[in-house]
């Protein structure tokens, strides 16, 4: 049981460590930068920005550490950066194995295709969990180190609720990965899709006639800044993300069952 998860997970350890270190370092820089900017009047700084852009970057209350982290770390790194990252690695899971001939060896083992797919995907949980389980405490320690405070439960929720969102992004990658033959195409297709969905949600959100389009984007269902500031979130949003993820997984399995490798 789960031999393939362990095997593939081991191969993800290095990437997970680098990812977590990078995100941690960036968060450290942002927390330090917050102390530098203390006393700056943000109303003045952002007065000239159009409301749509403020909305897009989730700039709400930059004068508190929660608001600053929400905008600079969570909206940029978790929503956009990690969203694209997991779409990218999801896109590489199956397609790169097929391209390099590794899939021949995997499928010569006594394991069904659907199980292999699930176990390979499950190995992506290694970086996904590492970046949250270690990134959260790292951010907290930085905040404490500069003499600020942040509600622990809100920080915990912001990380926890990012998991369904990241699963959907990785799931989009997985669907691309089983649908096309080349890893580079799958990776670009998945990254492009997640990025376009992110843009759509940001841009269309302001136009009422087409505001339904924003509901297509997974970014619509994970808003870290309100979680960090007020601890407010909608459980239905996470439920929608989880249902979408399961749908993508089932779709990927169906495609993988039928295809030649």
């Amino acid at each position, binding site marked *: 049981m789960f031999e393939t998860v362990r095997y593939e997970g081991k191969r993800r350890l290095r990437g997970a460590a680098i990812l977590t270190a990078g995100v941690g370092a960036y968060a450290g820089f942002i927390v330090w930068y917050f102390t530098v900017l203390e006393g700056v009047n943000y109303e003045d700084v952002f007065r000239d920005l159009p409301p749509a852009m403020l909305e897009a970057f989730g700039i709400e209350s930059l004068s508190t550490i929660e608001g600053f982290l929400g905008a600079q770390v969570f909206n940029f790194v978790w929503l956009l950066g990690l969203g694209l990252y997991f779409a990218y690695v999801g896109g590489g899971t199956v397609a790169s194995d097929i391209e390099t001939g590794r899939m*021949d060896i995997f499928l010569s083992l006594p394991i069904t295709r659907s199980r292999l797919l699930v176990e390979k995907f499950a190995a992506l949980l290694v970086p996904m969990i590492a970046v949250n389980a270690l990134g959260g405490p790292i951010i907290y320690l930085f905040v404490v180190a500069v003499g600020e405070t942040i509600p622990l439960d809100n920080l915990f929720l912001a990380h926890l609720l990012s998991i369904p969102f990241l699963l959907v992004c990785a799931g989009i990658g997985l669907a691309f990965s089983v649908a096309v033959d080349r890893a580079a195409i799958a990776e670009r297709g998945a990254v492009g899709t997640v990025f376009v969905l992110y843009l759509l949600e940001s841009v269309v959100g302001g136009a009422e006639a087409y505001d339904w389009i924003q509901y297509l984007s997974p970014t619509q269902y994970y808003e870290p800044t309100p979680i960090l500031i007020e601890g407010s979130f909608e459980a239905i949003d996470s439920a929608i993300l989880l249902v979408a993820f399961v749908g993508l997984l089932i779709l990927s399995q169906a495609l993988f069952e039928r295809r030649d490798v």
Partner: protein
Amino acid sequence: MSGDSARPLVVEELTKDYGSVVANDAVSFTVNEGEVFGFLGPNGAGKSTTIRMLLGLLKPTSGTAKVLGADIQDEAALTDAKRRIGYLPAHLGFEEELTGETVLDYHGEMKGDTRRDEMLELFTPPIDRPIREYSTGNKRMLGLVQAFMHDPDLVIMDEPTAGLDPLKQEAFNEFIRDERDRGTTAFFSSHVLSEVRRVCDRVGILRAGALVELENVDALLHRSGKHVRVHASDDAVTAITALDGVVGPERFAEGVQFIYAGDVNALLRELAAHDIRDVELGEPPIEDVFTHYYGSRAGADEGDGGEQKGDEPDGTGEDDV
């Protein structure tokens, strides 16, 4: 049918049509238990396509096959059968950043590793080093270790000796013969005539996606001849090509090359009688063997006489070619 279901490999009218090309065209054959079966054909003939259909990697367009009794279209049955199958793909895609040991550990967990140590004495990849440092031969040896480490009943190998040095090739041939004596069934593809000649009990030949002939090794060995290339004067060339058994002579500026299927001593005597500047004797390229002996696929179907003379009583004759 009960006889067929007991056979490790039964292939019936297996076809893979990619639209632009028919990679396998109604390929049928059976492999008996405890037999070494060579699947011979030039590069691009469709050998890997057949093998990859047998493992469920490709879906056949039509036709079917049973591997250790499991229908290749029945994923659950085939997955179960894979516990008793060893597979060595032609292209060895191992995880480059992992050590051979980690890969073997995983394979051991998935299918068993009762013979791992024994295999590692015979084939010696540097398992404590990352695979990205491996030579082609080392990768092949790691592939052989994983293919046999769980003591499978049936081993399917795609070009198993490609990249192995001659000594390891010899070790492989000997190993396959020993495995056969232990009752293991081996099915492997090759484009090297001498290889299948040395180790195979029976041979199937695939050409342009279709099986052209099934016959025993002796008949093939007798028929395939030597590739001869002689540098000599025109007179000498004329005399040499007049020998019985010279097939398809092709002259070039300094001499002639041909396939020789006659008595080797007669050839050597004739060569000794002339002033020869240079001579090469070797394995004929397999495509030449086909061209000279079968001409076209249609011709091959009629030229099946060798099968009647074959001394393998088990099943060869009933295979639909």
